[in-house]
């Protein structure tokens, strides 16, 4: 609304959305831009739906409103659908096709959504779907899937690739810099073809 580029990262607790948000924030500092963000904290458990808001160039509040996100990055297929209304018309959606089924579908005997069904409902957003887990594995560690996702979405961001890579190097554990840099590049390469 005020010229900020608004990115919503969603996923499941434990998937590394907070590190991804920190990488974006750091890249903004490298480029000397303002940035605001907000995220889900609280219960130190895994498995809940989580969201990270990042407003590149943001000077006011940290929250992105429904219909306002320029870019939606989802670490899980179902979460992409849950937060799809946040995307603005013509916004970019980058989605890990990996699907973690919520325990609720088993305990409450709800119809189990299939990957095909969810991908079908997402089609109208023309998402870039990728298997971030597999790409991360190829890069050297499945834990790098969050960096793969950033790489795949990086083409849509108003940030230089070099700034993002520099931020990745600064924020990931030192021993994993090579794996994460590779994960970023492989993600970026995939995103380019999407």
């Amino acid at each position, binding site marked *: 609304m005020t010229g900020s580029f608004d990115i919503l990262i969603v996923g499941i607790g434990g998937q590394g959305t907070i590190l991804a948000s920190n990488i974006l924030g750091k890249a903004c500092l490298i480029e000397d831009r303002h940035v605001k963000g907000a995220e889900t904290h609280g219960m130190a458990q895994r498995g809940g739906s989580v969201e990270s808001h990042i407003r590149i160039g943001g000077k006011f*509040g940290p929250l992105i409103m429904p219909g306002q996100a320029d870019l939606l990055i989802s670490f899980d297929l179902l979460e992409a659908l849950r937060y799809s209304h946040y995307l603005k018309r013509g916004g970019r959606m980058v989605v890990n096709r990996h699907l973690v089924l919520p325990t609720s579908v088993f305990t409450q005997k709800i119809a189990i959504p299939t990957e095909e069904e969810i991908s079908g409902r997402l089609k109208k957003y023309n998402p870039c779907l990728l298997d971030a887990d597999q790409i991360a594995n190829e890069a050297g560690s499945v834990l790098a899937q969050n960096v793969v996702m950033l790489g795949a979405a990086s083409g849509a961001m108003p940030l230089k690739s070099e700034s993002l890579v520099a931020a990745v190097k600064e924020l990931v554990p030192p021993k994993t810099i090579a794996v994460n840099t590779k994960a970023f590049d492989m993600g970026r390469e995939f995103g380019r073809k999407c």
Partner: protein
Amino acid sequence: MERKYLLGNEAIAHAALESGVDFVSGYPGTPSSEIIDTLRVQPDRSFYIEWSVNEKVALENALAAAWCGIRALCTMKHVGLNVASDPLMTSAYTGVTGGFVIMSADDPFAHSSQNEQDSRCYAHFAKVPCLDPASVQEAHDMMRDAFPLSEEFGLPVILRPTTRICHSKGDVVLGDAVPGTRKGEFHKDPRQYVVIPAHTRILHKKLNEKQPAIKKRLVERGYNRCEIRGRIAVIASGIGASYVEELLPAGISFAKIGAYPIDEDWLEAFIKKHEKILVIEELAPEVEEQVRQVSGGIPVFGKKNGYAPYEGELSPVLVAAIMVRAGFLQKNPFSPVEPEQNLPVRPPILCAGCLHRATFFAIKKVFKDAIYPSDIGCYTLGLQLGVVDTTICMGASITVASGIAHSGDPRDVVCTIGDSTFLHTGIQGLINAVYNGANMTVVILDNRITGMTGHQPNPNTGVTASGVETPPISLDAVCRACGVTFVETVDPFDIAGTVNVLAEAKKRRGVKVIIAKQMCVIMARRAGVKRKHFAVNGDVCTGCGTCVRFGCPAIEVVDEKARITGLCSGCSVCTQLCPAGAIGPEVLK
């Protein structure tokens, strides 16, 4: 000076370091916990830091430090301030010599809380200054400035960020951290520190006399500022002010309230220059009430006439809607959008291998038709399992249990409480229950840590906030000292053993305590505890659903048979539940 992308709480912690803080205490509570969690891991720490057992204890410790002339910070969440309100109220009378900042984080929308109370009301009640940041940068700057402000007026200062400040991030300009070098020294002065009636009456008068100067100073410092741009005006505070600033059309005046008490003369002078006023603030109508007192008939729009809600948190969409309704904005710039319907929910649930789920299972097995008071912690999620009937505040599981037990309902009363919550405010309730002869069972869910807020150590953990080893308290000995004769410790992963002890407790009268002891599964993983994973033998599984109903997130259903995923932490409970004997240790291919 440097610029960093920081969480609000990290920025507050850094500002405390820039102020040369000498003493830090607090009790964890979302959204406040990361302040001490950041400070306690600082290298070359020159200040004292503790996780206290509760907020009253934390506040009294920090108050004493400030009496000794050193700078003290005490952190808690808004409901913690209720626990600490007793010393708070009178600390305003005694005052302080060293800077004393009470950081009480509010939680509009109750993201992770039991209510939506407003710490500004406590500041008003206690007659102490309160700072109310609208951004991460302001939270940092206000924390830094709060110590000199406290020292200038000799009063505690409340800093009250909200969830959207504590857990939001921003690029923040930081100053340099300086080591705390003050040495505390207590100067005896009974007229100041012994609040007998003869002294306290004089202290109360002195407190009241300080107020006008505080109000003026808060305007001088720029916390409360205004800009006249037209004939109508918005007055806003906290995160709401940030939302307003993004939306405000040219030609509308704006006043930002960042500190309390508000100078009425300054406020009145601003209001008088306008034809109508809109007040935007979260939680209580603290600003609005002051505005109405001095508005002199100028129309005021806010909560009190239905333009803004009392409940929940503000958002840009909501603020825009309020501005449109009150005639401060032509059109809401956000067009309404509908979320996708019929998606399975993904609420927070207890972890795979959590001791609480196993304990709740055993409780339900033994006490089928009982009343289950519970408490505040991860285990409140036992609501999903049908074993949480009440939760009101920290420590109230035991007291609610004894209250129900004395009320004539013939059913068994079985309450659950975590180890940290028991040490926080549970013990008094246990003493009371034993003393007054209640018939009830208390299950202490002992995971050795304060789990929900991010794994802070407590007296049960065997380590302090700063990582120093300390003898872990014996919950068994504490309960026996309270007069409980039936105290049994069980391993909740041993379902049969736990069921047996619960069944024994069910037979007996009086207060029975069962300590279900097993390390929090997240801590166990961090500590390197490795257990064998389990797997379902598909040929033996009958698809009966017993293990699925247990609710473990590591168990899913594929082609009508159970399957155990990589989330398995090896607690083995499902193997004990499976009637077909289909679950066993995973055989690695």
